């Protein structure tokens, strides 16, 4: 199911906004022993600043692979991935670390919180790696925790928090360095539906405040929140839709 190149241009939303993510004909091939797995096959995708994109598709269709490339955690086998108009294949490992630190906030399905570390310290972590290290790191971390509704959980350890609260800590951590882009790979996959709704509402609110949000999800009602839905199958984009009546507008 090949998507014509024109289609991509027709569905690129927020005309006039500067481009934040530009994936041009990228493929990602993994070799496992003798076999090769084509996780992404000649995919192109453009996302502009300020968009709210839901990526959907069955398991194994290449969504996470795409997210990792967008998040500068990995490089494509062929094709070019530009983030903030910079080709990640040409950047040094330090420059990539800096890009992940400043421009991108990542939220994972498994939360990926550090054990034996308080919520406040978790959220301060990206600022510890920032250069120069901000002098108001703790203050900023407190503000982000307040923003995700955990003002009274600053000194709690992960095991003292519910799944939803842990994911909020992870979101606060992703936000603390004021990134342009928030990437979330199945952020509600491990949460119940009510908590999931709260988390998605939080993403809408953040998007309304100007952050570009790209979220991978299986659930259609979660995807309802997004302004744009991109459907993956077998390493290809099979559908890229601008939602006419997305719920995210309610948060504006």
């Amino acid at each position: 199911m090949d998507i014509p190149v024109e289609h991509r241009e027709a569905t690129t939303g927020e005309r006039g906004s500067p481009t934040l993510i530009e994936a041009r004909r990228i493929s990602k091939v993994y070799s496992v022993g003798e076999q090769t797995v084509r996780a992404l096959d000649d995919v192109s995708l453009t996302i502009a600043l300020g968009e709210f994109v839901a990526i959907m598709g069955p398991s194994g269709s290449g969504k996470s692979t795409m997210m990792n490339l967008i998040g500068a955690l990995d490089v494509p086998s062929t094709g070019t991935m530009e983030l903030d108009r910079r080709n990640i294949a040409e950047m040094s490992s330090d420059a990539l670390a800096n890009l992940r630190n400043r421009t991108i906030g990542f939220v994972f399905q498994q939360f990926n919180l550090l054990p034996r570390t308080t919520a406040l310290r978790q959220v301060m972590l990206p600022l510890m790696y920032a250069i120069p290290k901000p002098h108001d790191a703790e203050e900023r971390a407190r503000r982000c925790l307040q923003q995700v509704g955990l003002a009274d959980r600053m000194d709690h350890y992960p095991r003292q928090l519910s799944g939803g609260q842990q994911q909020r800590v992870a979101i606060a951590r992703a936000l603390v360095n004021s990134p342009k882009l928030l990437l979330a790979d199945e952020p509600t996959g491990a949460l119940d539906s009510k908590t999931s709704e709260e988390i998605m509402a939080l993403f809408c609110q953040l998007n309304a405040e100007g952050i570009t949000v790209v979220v991978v999800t299986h659930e259609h009602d979660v995807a309802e929140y997004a302004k744009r839905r991109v459907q993956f199958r077998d390493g290809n984009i099979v559908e890229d839709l601008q939602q006419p009546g997305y719920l995210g507008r309610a948060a504006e």
Partner: protein
Amino acid sequence: MSIVDSLRIALTALRANMLRSILTTLGIIIGVGSVIVMVAVGSGARSEVDRQIASLGSNMLVVFPGASRVGGRSGGAGSRLPLSERDMQAIREKTTGVVAVSGMLQGSGPVVRGNMNWSTNFVGVHDQYNVVRDWPVINGREFTPNETRTAARVALLGTTVVEKLFGTSEPVGQTIRVKNVPFQVVGVLESKGQNSFGRDQDDVVMLPMSAARGRIVGRSQVINDSVGTIYVKFAPDVSLTEAQEQMESLLRQRRRIKAGSEDDFNVRNLSEFLRARASALTTMGWLLGATSAISLIVGGIGIMNIMLVSVTERTREIGLRMAVGGRRRDILLQFLVEAVALCMLGGVIGVIIGVSAAAVVAMSAQWPILIAPDAILMALAAAALTGIVFGFFPARRAAHLNPIDALRSE
């Protein structure tokens, strides 16, 4: 990330596996502990030997009557010609660089004051004995040359004797009795402590040579003007080897010993003897040093092993740190700091154990406890260096993980 932040992370990680951390550092504990013991025992032994040499008297030779082969001599005591006042006189006049000379007769027996009685060592000496032995009088005065000549009934007491007979009261001017003969105490000797054979040198009563002869040593054993042993002190710039040769040929000549036959006296440099013993201790120190080097290497391999385990266990954490902006050098530093902190933990425990062990050794050998702060710093630096060397490979492995593979690991 700053060192302080890295250290905070390292301590959190080490605390989480407290028992494992301590067991891992066992090699470092032993290595650092033995460095401390080695240095402390080495310097304690050296200072003890120095003290003994000093208490012997500096730049000094001793002439003993009889041949140097002490055991297995068949000549019998009768054939042994004692050293005489005239031998001593000749040494004083004909050897170059002599500063002071004194004979020394030794004996033992009771000394009495009033109804107090103490069994002690007597020495009969000439007036220069205090100079020769670097053994000053701290209270009162030394013997005069005249007192030595006229068998004056005066005495110098060691501090142990003073304590036994006088307690805290003033001994100078008081009278003591030796074999029922009254002697007046004219001075108290400075305390010298134990000699190299563990004998209390302060348990002593000094009498003028002529007064002591026949009194502390039975008259039958003392032939005319015997002076026992002769102590000779030389000027600091005199070579003792040359002085020894000079004295030996002088005495052979005086005592008419034919060429080729054995001396009936022997001249010894006692400091040399003590130094030889000290060098045996130094050898022991080197052995301990080798032990600690091997322990540090074995300990370092243990650290490397546990750091590799730690990197594997925390692969996801490493991936996360990279995902939020940790650079390779940040990850490298974090694990290096952790390895060094682990080694320093072992180092501190090792220092505590080493200092205690050194204190026990020093107490049982009755040495001063000498634990130099620079030995502790050196041992801790060796531990830190071990952490850097053996922590580098695991830390580098962590730093070169691919962020995605790290995040995906279980």
